[in-house]
Structures are given as structure tokens and as C-alpha cells.
């Protein structure tokens, strides 16, 4: 179980998370929705330990990420997670098989002799085959996403974190990814957190949906509860209206959002 109590995170003068209270039960898929810059990706990176919360408590299976000290503790923590990055973040210099099995060396005790079979099995789980020796540059956007998903599940994680899994894909490929998320949920019995703007995707894959606004989770509920909400902020977002309580100032979008998406400089904060 993942539990966040009053998690606050700032980058310089800019506070991104202003006290996130959220619980993710084992086996469920929690979808986080919200506008750009509301802290969705930052929260995901706090969960996996790429960012440390400034205050509040974030625990995973009772372990508090900011209190992990040794390499073994950190590896044990990271082993629980698979992370699908928005653009896939595949390593350009490696083949598909090398990408998929990269984490096994650091996160598991799996013998290297088994790596090839694991890569093939993981590719099969995401509906791909015979591309083990391809380089990422030879793949389409949808295939890259699926290979990245294969990499995320290679070490058999308990939790999968998806950062905008359908962004940049055509509607059909988006639905393929949604089906994959559901399929992996059934086959691997994982707990998932999905960050997305795509409401069609959110309704399809979510057990529950959490709406983030200005660094807080303003509503959490089942897809039906969210659809029927009376909250004006949530209504405006799910209906995609430009008029409403959420003020989209053009200036806000001009601000460099790298704080939300970029990890700190090597060795500074990330563990």
C-alpha cells in the first residue's frame, strides 16, 4: 500500500505539492488527473524516490523512502516499482533486449543467461515479438511505449507507475496501451498509479480517480463518482472547458516546467 500524508515539495521558490493526502490500496489502479503543473508527475517521482518530499510522510508497504540509507535498502525499495516514462526514456545506445533487461542486474539476482528469455517473455506480454535486437530509433512511438512498458515489468514489480502513458499516441494506439494496462493488472496483479490528461483513458483503466489542483488532491473517487461530481473544478477539467474556476493563465504556461519533470542534478537529491 502507498500512503501519502501531507506531502509537500518545492523547487526553489515554487511549491509544487502543497500537502498531498492520498492512499493507494494494493491491487487497485489509481489514476491521477489534473492540469499541467499541478504536481502529478512530481508526486509520482516522490513515490519512486527521485524527489524527496520537503515535509509530510510518504510510505510504501510501511517503508518511508526518505529514511532509506544503504544501497541494499534503496535497491529493495526500487525493486518494488516499474516506471513508464512519458516518452519511454529508452536508452538509445542499447538494443530492445538490453533495454528491457537493464534493471535486472541491479534489482534482481537473475542469472544473465536468462536475460534473453526474460526480454522475449516481457515483449510477448506487451504484444511484441522478434524485435529484441532492434535499436529504439528503429521503432515507432507506440512500439517504444510498449518496449518501455516491457522494461518496467521485467523485474516483476509490485507497483507500476505510468507517467502519461498515452500522450503523443494516436487514438487507436492509446486504446491499445489502455488495454495493456488492464491486461497487466489482471496477469501480474500489480498496483498501478497512472498520471494522465486523457479522460477516456482514465475512465477505462481506473479503479479510482484523484483530481490534483494547485498541489492538492481535491477529490478522490470511483470513475462514476468523478463523472457525477458537483465540484466545479473537477467538472471543468473532466469536461475540458476553458471557462470555470480553473484559470488557465497564459503566463503560467510560459513558466519553465522543467522543475516538475526533471530530476535534480546527479547525486544531489535523487538516490
Amino acid at each position, binding site marked *: 500500500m502507498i500512503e501519502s500524508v501531507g506531502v509537500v515539495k518545492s523547487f526553489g521558490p515554487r511549491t509544487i505539492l502543497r500537502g498531498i493526502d492520498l492512499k493507494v490500496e494494493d491491487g487497485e489502479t489509481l489514476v491521477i488527473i489534473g492540469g499541467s503543473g499541478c504536481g502529478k508527475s512530481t508526486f509520482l*517521482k516522490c513515490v*519512486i*524516490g*527521485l524527489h524527496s518530499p520537503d515535509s509530510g510522510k510518504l510510505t510504501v508497504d510501511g517503508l518511508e523512502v526518505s529514511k532509506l540509507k544503504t544501497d541494499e535498502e534503496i*535497491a529493495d525499495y*526500487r*525493486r518494488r*516499482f*516499474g*516506471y513508464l*516514462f*512519458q*516518452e519511454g*526514456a*529508452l*536508452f*538509445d545506445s542499447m538494443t530492445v533486449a538490453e533495454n528491457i533487461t*537493464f*534493471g535486472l*542486474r*541491479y*534489482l534482481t539476482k537473475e542469472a544473465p543467461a536468462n536475460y534473453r528469455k526474460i526480454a522475449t517473455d516481457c515483449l510477448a506480454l506487451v504484444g511484441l515479438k522478434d524485435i529484441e535486437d532492434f535499436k529504439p530509433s528503429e521503432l515507432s512511438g507506440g512500439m517504444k511505449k510498449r518496449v518501455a512498458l516491457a*522494461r518496467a515489468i521485467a*523485474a516483476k514489480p509490485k507497483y507500476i507507475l505510468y507517467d502519461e502513458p498515452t500522450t503523443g499516441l494516436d487514438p487507436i494506439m492509446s486504446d491499445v496501451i489502455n488495454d495493456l494496462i488492464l491486461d497487466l493488472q489482471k496477469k501480474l496483479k500489480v498496483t498501478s498509479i497512472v498520471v494522465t490528461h486523457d479522460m477516456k483513458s482514465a475512465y477505462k483503466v481506473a479503479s479510482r480517480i484523484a483530481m490534483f489542483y494547485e498541489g492538492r488532491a481535491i477529490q478522490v473517487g470511483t470513475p462514476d463518482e468523478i463523472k457525477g461530481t458537483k465540484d466545479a473544478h473537477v467538472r471543468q477539467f473532466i469536461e475540458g472547458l476553458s471557462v470555470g474556476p480553473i484559470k488557465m493563465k497564459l503566463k503560467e504556461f510560459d513558466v*519553465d516546467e*522543467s522543475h516538475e*519533470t*526533471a*530530476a535534480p*542534478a*546527479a*547525486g*544531489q537529491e*535523487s*538516490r
Partner: protein
Amino acid sequence: MITPVLEGIGSGVLGASEETGHFVFLIRSTFQWMFRGKIEWRQTLIQMARIGVESLPVTAMTSFFTGMVLALQTGASSKHFFNVPLFVGTVVSFSIVMELGPVMTAIVVAGRAGAAIAAELGTMKVTEQIDALYTLGTDPVRYLVIPRLLAFLVVLPLLTVISDFTGIVGGLFVARVKYDIPTTVYWHDIIDNMEIRHFVHGFLKTFIFAFVVSMVSSYKGVTTRGGAEGVGKSTTAAVVMSMVLVLVLDYFATAMLNALGIT
């Protein structure tokens, strides 16, 4: 009127301090991982091959022509004063082995391999590949920075030795063709006057340059922000900062080695 100026100075000082702090933090982190013995040997070998292969032709050619021009100038000057080209081998070899070989090689490698490192790591940063390394259980300092540092520490001294040799051969070429100095005279000029400590003087500096160029290039790469434009800026900054630091540190290294009697 004066407030914006003071604000500008203050923010500049703060920015520079912050950057220096992050750089020192990266160096500390690098040494911590190295002392824990967690070294990616395969990556180190790949980087050694890459840096060596990329840089060898250009460093050899640069030093060959440097040796040629040194011989040309020395011969012309000594002919002007003494009517014969004297000590061409001595001047070329001392200049190349103690100063020009290490400095020119470091600068050329900074422009070639240092830029490649900053661009590669910068691209990895903006495409979240560095974040991916964290999530897959390793640390970018361990996987990316240390192999490049070790590769530089091995390859730059080797390139410098090759560069010294090609520079001296370049000088010999001009001495033979332009001034008709016999090959044996040229080599005797070198052997009679040069001692092992002169070579050591130049050779030791290469380790300082290797450390600076690799760390600056890696630092600029892993702190890249802002997409393709950011990668370009980081690459340029890495090369410029490396070159300036090589020249500045060359002075201090020379002063220190002279004080230690390695001169």
C-alpha cells in the same frame, strides 16, 4: 538606478556559488562511488575506446603541425641570429613535451570527446534516460560519470605521449626538408638535453587535465535543462569551461611542479 545593478551582481554571485556547489557535490559523489569499488568496467572500456578512437587522428595531426611550425620558427630565428639553424630538436622537444603536447591534447580532446560527453549526457537528461537509470536501480554517477572519468585518466596521458612523439616527428620533418639538418643531429639535440623529469613534468599535468575535462563535461551534461537548446548550451559551456580551466590550471600545475623540482 543602483538597485538593479546590485541585484544583478548578487544573483550572479549566487548563481556561480550554486553551480560551484553542485559541481563539488558531483565530485564528492564520484569519489564516494569509486571508493565503494562499484565500477562499471565494461562501460569504462567502451568509453576508453570511444575517446581514444575519436580523438587520436585529430590530436596526432594537431601536434604534427605544431611540431612543424615550432621547427620552422626556431630554425628561422636561430638562422637570423647565428646564420645556422641551431637547437631545433631541443626547442621543439622541450616545448612539445613540457607544455604544448599536454595542453594542446587536452584542448583538442575537450573539443572532441568532452563535447560528445556533454551532448550525450545532456540528451539523456532531457529525455529522462537519466531518471530511468535511477528507477532501474543504478546511479548515473556510477554508470555514466565514473567510466568517463576513468577512461579520460587512462586515454589522455596515452594520447599525450603519442602527441609528443608526432610533434617531435613533425619538427624533424621540417628540420630535414627545410633546414637540411641530419636526422641524427636532430635526435642528439633531444637526447643530449632532455631528461626523464622533463617528460614527467608534462605527463603529470595530463592527469589534472583529464580530471577537469571529464568532470566538467559530465557535469554540464547531467545538469542540462530545456530540450535541444539546452543540450547545445551545455555542450558549448562544457567545451569553453574545459579549455579555460586547462589553460588556467596549466599555470598553477607548472608552478607547483617547478616548486617540487620536477622541471
